[in-house]
């Protein structure tokens, strides 16, 4: 059978692989190479070794955006997951209108980042109006604005994952715990949380990754203002490429560092899920 499929290799493999080659593989490899060059278009580079990587950290800009990004991600991961889990518990009690609530809470997840950013810019500026300031007056407004936006967008998404996990807990397990006299608190800590641990891992990593990759929302809500103080990694890299001439190589070096960071997070998740599967 393998032989007769191989005869049509070109038909099955080429369409997707050609596109993958053009859109990802070539840009990826040339991106890594160009991070060691000084260039302004792809073809005029001179080799500069590690200089771009040094320049990435020469002023505090990149480190500041990394620190802002880390704080933002930590706060939103915690708030999103607590909120989502609480909603999931509320919506698995068999209350009236459960489906309608689920529909409403999930809806913001489908709205694109640019649109989300502008919606929240209006609302946050509305709340700041009595103080006579706007979201770009002080970086703390931008920080909490981004956290609120991120919660609004992602709580419903994580909620549906938690709901699916809670509904998958075997009924016998719950009945047995009840018969053994478990109260609501014991039920939560000894039955529900251990049973949904794999989903918890998934949700934590989904929110961590999307926190670090955030771009559109950042651009539309604050555009990094005031003075780059609310600029997260992805936006900082973008501005290094396109808002400063002569820094394309530095932008590419920052992008490589960014990719390594995101890949490290993904590998950690993989390792955790693997070790859990082996235990099971």
């Amino acid at each position, binding site marked *: 059978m393998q032989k*007769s499929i191989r005869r049509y290799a070109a038909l099955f493999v080429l369409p997707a692989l050609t596109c993958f080659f053009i859109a990802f593989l070539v840009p990826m490899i040339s991106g890594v190479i160009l991070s060691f060059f000084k260039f302004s278009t792809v073809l005029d580079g001179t080799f500069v070794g590690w200089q771009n990587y040094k320049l990435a950290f020469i002023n505090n800009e990149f480190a500041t955006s990394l620190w802002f990004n880390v704080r933002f991600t930590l706060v939103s991961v915690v708030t999103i997951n607590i909120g989502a889990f609480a909603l999931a518990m509320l919506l698995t009690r068999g209350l009236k209108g459960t489906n309608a609530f689920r529909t409403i809470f999930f809806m913001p997840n489908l709205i694109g980042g640019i649109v989300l950013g502008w919606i929240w810019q209006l609302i946050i500026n509305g709340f700041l109006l009595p103080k006579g300031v706007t979201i770009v007056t002080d970086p703390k407004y931008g920080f909490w604005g981004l956290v609120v936006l991120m919660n609004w967008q992602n709580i419903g998404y994580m909620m549906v994952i938690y709901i699916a996990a809670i509904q998958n807990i075997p009924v016998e397990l719950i009945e047995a715990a009840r018969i053994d006299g478990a109260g609501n608190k014991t039920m939560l800590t000894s039955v529900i949380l251990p049973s949904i641990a794999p989903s918890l891992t998934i949700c934590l990593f989904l929110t961590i990754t999307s926190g670090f990759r955030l771009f559109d929302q950042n651009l539309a809500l604050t555009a990094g203002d005031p003075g780059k103080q609310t600029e997260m990694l992805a936006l900082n890299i973008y501005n290094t490429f396109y808002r400063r001439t002569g820094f394309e190589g530095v932008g590419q070096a920052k*992008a490589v560092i960014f990719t390594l960071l995101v890949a490290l997070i993904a590998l950690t998740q993989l390792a955790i899920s693997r070790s859990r599967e082996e235990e099971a």
Partner: protein
Amino acid sequence: MSIVKKHRTMDIVLFIILILLAAIFLAPLLIVLMNSFKSKFFISSQPFKFPTADTFTGRENYIEGARKIKFFNAFGYSLFITVFSVIGISLATSMLAWYLTRVKSVFTTVVYYLLVFSMIVPFQMVMFTMSKTANLLHLDNPIGILVLYVGFGAGLGTFMFSGFIKTIPLSLEEAAMIDGATAPQTFFLVVYPMLKSTAITVAILNTMWVWNDYLLPYLTIGIEYKTIPVAIQYLRGGYGAVDMGAMMAMLVLAMIPIIIFYLAMQKHIIRGVIAGAVKG
């Protein structure tokens, strides 16, 4: 038996809390809708007030906004690019996934891992080199960009399709081939019909991504062909104040198709998103 011990009064309190939360979740959308009918001079200064006889402008913001950013052209580009990218991704990646799963060689293993790797690489890593490559190959138009989307979507699509194909027993395909079917006949007549549920998941995840995507179309085709997110961000302009009236109206128009799509396909969307999160 319920997961939590039930109390009638408790249920009523929780129900009221849910109603309040749902109102908070929906409020941002309603505030934008309300402001889209107000004169632009009264939006930033009183965002939470209903339009009055003085501030009501009827359809004016919609007409002005649609003219400024050529909304209906943007809608057309977004629709064209989304529909054909999604069709392209579903077809090309299901074919590739079948080949990679059924033919075992060093080549197929390497390709598979490269595709999985591409899923964790953030867009900033390749954005510069990719947009230069796209220019070089004249892919900077609404048809060329489909190649980029198939290339970027190849990872997730192939990963999800191969996950499912691995569970299909070989015997059906072998029987078809013994009866003289060629590989393409076997794939399209025997395998493809079985992939329906995965195809729906892949289509939904990619629809949400491509429709809302900002940076890729902005960098490659953004000057000549603005998709909806690009057109909306374009309202910000270079300097000076944003026309908040036009902005509100365009945010509403941008959200209407998404909300219709969501309400029509809700079950598939939520199921697809869960499947994507758990497997991705």
